């Protein structure tokens, strides 16, 4: 099973490579990828350097081009595909059908993975994308139960990657517009959810308020910790109750499900977090490397070690973790 790790910067890439990643994924410094945050991502020279570092250790480099161009900026995405091909990366991770079509047409030998943002949840959808655009792998949205993942893997003509760890999108990726409803900018159009320039924190007598694009996302008492204010993790009033109407701040952690994921034929597990620090990448990659190796040696007796869970717990959003949709009761 391939361990695919996030590289938001060259130091993070180094950390992933040294900690045992089989592949890293990164993006260009623009809206062509879904982590378009200030200070993140790679210039061409940095990708060259990253490729050298990765290749020296036999690690693959994937470029995420997983947002949705519109007519006015189409040329930028097309150019990004050309750049990725010229750099000689191992695959591009694409969401948009038009970009897939362009890449398949212009660079047929450049491997194409379907991004989680492509929002394909069934083997029928994957068969279509394989037949028309030659995708080789797909990252599944974090909405399927384990039984449904098994069904997709069993019938998909392409190999399947799933998310293993990191911040959890509770909404179907690639089709969530909450961010643009409040700010005008969404992951699809701008490569960022709840962009930092729209966040306002304010101390008030009633507590610390967090606003996104002027909309009050949460109000907390002094001492309550606050995660990054994505709209889906705010507290709202429904009827007479004020609560996390959509999702508590929490992270996905499927470490304990590794034996099942391996047995059902998932080829790769992805770690979320290109926006996180090199230390996060190092710790999470190290932990998952050990876990995957232990599981591959003896799946029957695999159990996550307490120190692994402690390490992952420390870097989890809201300091708690969930299996997410893989575990039916969460739904």
């Amino acid at each position, binding site marked *: 099973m391939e361990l695919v790790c996030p590289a938001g910067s060259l130091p993070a890439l180094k950390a992933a490579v040294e900690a045992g990643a089989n592949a890293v994924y990164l993006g260009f410094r623009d809206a062509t990828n879904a982590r378009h945050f200030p200070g993140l991502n790679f210039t061409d020279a940095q990708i060259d350097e990253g490729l050298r570092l990765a290749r020296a250790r036999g690690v693959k480099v994937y470029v995420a081009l997983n947002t*949705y*161009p*519109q*007519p*006015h900026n*189409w040329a930028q995405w097309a150019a990004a595909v050309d750049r990725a091909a010229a750099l000689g990366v191992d695959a591009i991770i694409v*969401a*948009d*059908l*038009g*970009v897939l*079509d*362009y890449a398949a047409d212009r660079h047929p030998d450049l491997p194409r993975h379907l991004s989680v943002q*492509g*929002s*394909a*949840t*069934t083997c*029928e*959808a994957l068969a*279509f*994308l394989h037949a*028309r655009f030659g995708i080789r792998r797909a990252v599944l949205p*974090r*909405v*399927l*139960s384990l039984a449904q993942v098994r*069904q997709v893997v069993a019938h998909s003509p392409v190999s399947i990657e799933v998310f293993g760890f990191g911040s959890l999108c*509770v*909404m*179907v990726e690639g*089709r*969530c*517009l*909450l961010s*643009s*409803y*409040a*700010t*005008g900018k*969404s992951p*699809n*159009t701008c490569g960022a959810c709840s962009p930092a320039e729209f966040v306002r924190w304010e101390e008030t007598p009633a507590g610390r308020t967090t606003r996104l*694009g002027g*909309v*009050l*996302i*949460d109000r907390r008492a002094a001492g309550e910790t606050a995660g990054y204010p994505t709209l*889906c993790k705010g507290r*709202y*009033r*429904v009827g007479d109750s004020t609560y996390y*109407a*959509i*999702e508590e701040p929490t992270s996905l952690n499927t470490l304990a499900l590794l034996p099942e994921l391996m047995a059902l034929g998932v080829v790769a597990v992805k770690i979320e977090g290109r926006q996180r620090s090199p230390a996060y990448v190092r710790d999470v990659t190290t932990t998952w490397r050990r876990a995957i190796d232990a599981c591959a040696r003896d799946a029957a007796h695999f159990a996550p070690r307490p120190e692994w869970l402690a390490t992952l717990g420390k870097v989890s959003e809201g300091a708690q973790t969930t299996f*997410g*949709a893989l575990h*039916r*009761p969460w*739904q």
Partner: protein
Amino acid sequence: MSTTGAPRLAIGPVLTYWPAEQLRTFYASVADGPADIVYLGETVCAKRRALRFDEWVEIAEHLVARGKEVVLSTLALVEAESERKTLRQICENGRFLVEANDLTAVALLAGRAPFVTGPTVNVYNARTLQRLAKEGLRRFVLPVELSRETFGALRAACPDGVEGEVWAWGRLPLALSARCFTARAHNLPKDDCAFRCLDYPDGLLARTQEGQPFLTLNGIQTQSAQTHSLLGDLDDVIALGADVLRISPQSRQTEVVVQAFADALAGRTPLDGPALARLAPLGLCDGYWRGAPGIAAPAA
């Protein structure tokens, strides 16, 4: 199909959960109203089974007999085998045009039957549009977060025989999840939800902690609280080449909304502010169309 002249009016699929009797009453009224196109079927939650497939077809036949074009709509999030089975039945119906709301439906229809892409299929650029046109796309509904500029460019890039439809009225479909937020609001698991959506014919309102209406919880779907309206932008919508205007049903006064659009297209006096406000008690928005945050209210 026409690509000139005034746009036609479409009734979108009912997004909330209404009992069978309410659906029948609603479509009986639609049959007598000025809408040209009617989208039928469940698009949000497969557990909602107010009507069976053959009962939907019965309503479809009645609407066709009254001169309406009928399109069968499909689920926006397809996961379980049972959902895929129902989807195949709709896609293979052989008689009615189908609205694909996810890539599974696109896959089942591509190269086999003409189809419409709904607002949750990401048609963001001309290359996607033209690629899908080769697969049988007849009409695309603009994803709701896209602006008038993007619609204009996409409409101009439509191959012959492909139309553009815009979300002209209704709460906006903003997100889908594996999780059911209505069940969550009642501390119920999704698998044992007691069909609480039936209690909320216009969804369950989520306000911010300072009381601003913000979102509508509709089972696994999250909608806007505000009603998106292009009623005040019709000249622009028409100038950009919209072929179809979608009105998303609400539990009350949908027929008044449809009539207001028909009147406006016929050049008759538009509704005044108070009349409009009564149709959208939580307020109007049209920001997406103007390239602004979706929640932004129309210019006064």
